């Protein structure tokens, strides 16, 4: 690879480094083993530094992945800062030990990680073993009766999927057109409704049984006309009838 190509290559992001880990606990266990530390007596300050260094190299962290790693970073920082401060013990009260909790989490996770490895070995073996399935296909009714409440959501989705695979017909469709009412159209009709020198109520302008869409369109139009100073609106008290009147500017501007 030429020097130019190497320079233009993006720096190795921590995302790639983190991709080989199954989360913050996995990364911590890796760091502990790498530095040959004893899991039962973790020097938190050292581990926290190593962990934060690893995370700091991460420039392009996926936010979903990052959040989990960052929570651990915060926990470690908190434990470290606490260990630097003098501790006061009040009576024989035993405060919750975050290090013990972390240790418990690590030991538990490590156990399951080992189990997962053992399962993987069984998977490798048993993928190569083929088991006779018996005579279900021939003699049994595969459409087994399902008791109410036994079918899961997944069963229903599978049933739907097999159904849509079977039928080639597409579902009948219908196109619904949305009727659009523009402010310009509203202004035009208001021009006819509000005659010069007369006052009209908003209710009259809307007519009988107006749709919600219509009311909103006309109301927005009113606001627009008021902004332009083309109409004057009066309302005696909240929710009372609105009376509309033309101003002289309407005729002058338009």
């Amino acid at each position, binding site marked *: 690879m030429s020097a130019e190509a190497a320079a233009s290559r993006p720096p190795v992001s921590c995302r790639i480094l983190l991709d080989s880990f199954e989360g913050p606990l996995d990364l911590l266990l890796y760091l502990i083993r790498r530095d040959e530390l004893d899991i039962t007596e973790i020097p938190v300050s050292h581990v926290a530094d190593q962990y934060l260094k690893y995370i700091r190299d991460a420039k392009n962290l996926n936010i979903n992945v990052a959040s989990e790693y960052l929570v651990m970073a915060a926990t470690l920082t908190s434990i470290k800062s606490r260990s630097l401060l003098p501790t006061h013990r009040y009576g024989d009260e035993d405060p919750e030990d975050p290090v013990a909790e972390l240790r418990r989490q690590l030991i*538990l*996770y490590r156990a399951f990680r080992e189990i997962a490895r053992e399962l993987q070995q069984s998977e490798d073996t048993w*993928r190569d073993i083929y*088991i006779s399935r018996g005579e279900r296909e021939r003699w049994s009714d595969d459409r087994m009766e399902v008791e109410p409440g036994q079918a899961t959501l997944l069963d229903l989705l599978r049933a739907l999927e097999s159904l849509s695979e079977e039928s080639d017909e597409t579902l009948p469709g219908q196109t619904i057109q949305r009727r659009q009412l523009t402010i310009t159209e509203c202004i035009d009709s208001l021009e006819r409704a509000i005659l010069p020198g007369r006052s009209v109520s908003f209710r009259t302008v809307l007519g009988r049984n107006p749709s919600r869409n219509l009311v909103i369109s006309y109301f927005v139009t009113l606001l627009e006309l008021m902004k332009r100073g083309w109409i004057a609106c009066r309302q005696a008290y909240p929710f009372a009838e609105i009376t509309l009147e033309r101003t002289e500017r309407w005729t002058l501007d338009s």
Partner: protein
Amino acid sequence: MILDRLSREIEALVFASDSPLTISELCELTGSGEDSVEQALQRIEVSFSEQQHALNIVEVAGGYRLATEEEFGPVLSQLFEGQKPGKLSRAALETLAVVAYSQPCTRTAIDSVRGVNCDSAIRTLLERDMIRISGRRETPGRPLLYSTTSVFLEYFGLADIDHLPRVEEITELLGMSSSELEERDLFGGAPQEPDPGE
């Protein structure tokens, strides 16, 4: 070795059955006692291996099945090319391990053991029938509970759920932590000795 009548009956039953047959089912179907069924199963096993057959009788997912020997995997896989689902990811295997040992368990419990969000792993395992939704926990929010299935046992060649690797060790580990947690919850951080006077 020439097989006796009972052994051959059992062999035929296991061959034709669509689900694994348990010892007690075999007793009922053949009208024999448990001891003689177990001995007959052993004789079948010996007979298969003595005559170098590609098959043998195995205990898996709670009962007996006829299965091919591992070494014929490559030749057999040609029959199912492109149909066999891929191997499970590490995330899926870890999630499955947690469910297997602490079932029925909630998603939150799995997340907290693994220290990461396990949503997509759970979805994969549900789709592959390795786990199922087995109910809801009667706590606020009524979270879903997950358990493993017989597909899981068969996939990993496990006789039953008690035959998981190091089951006692892990159960002890889980029990320890949960009692610790419980005490912490109940007594606000100070584990207390149980009062012997009670």
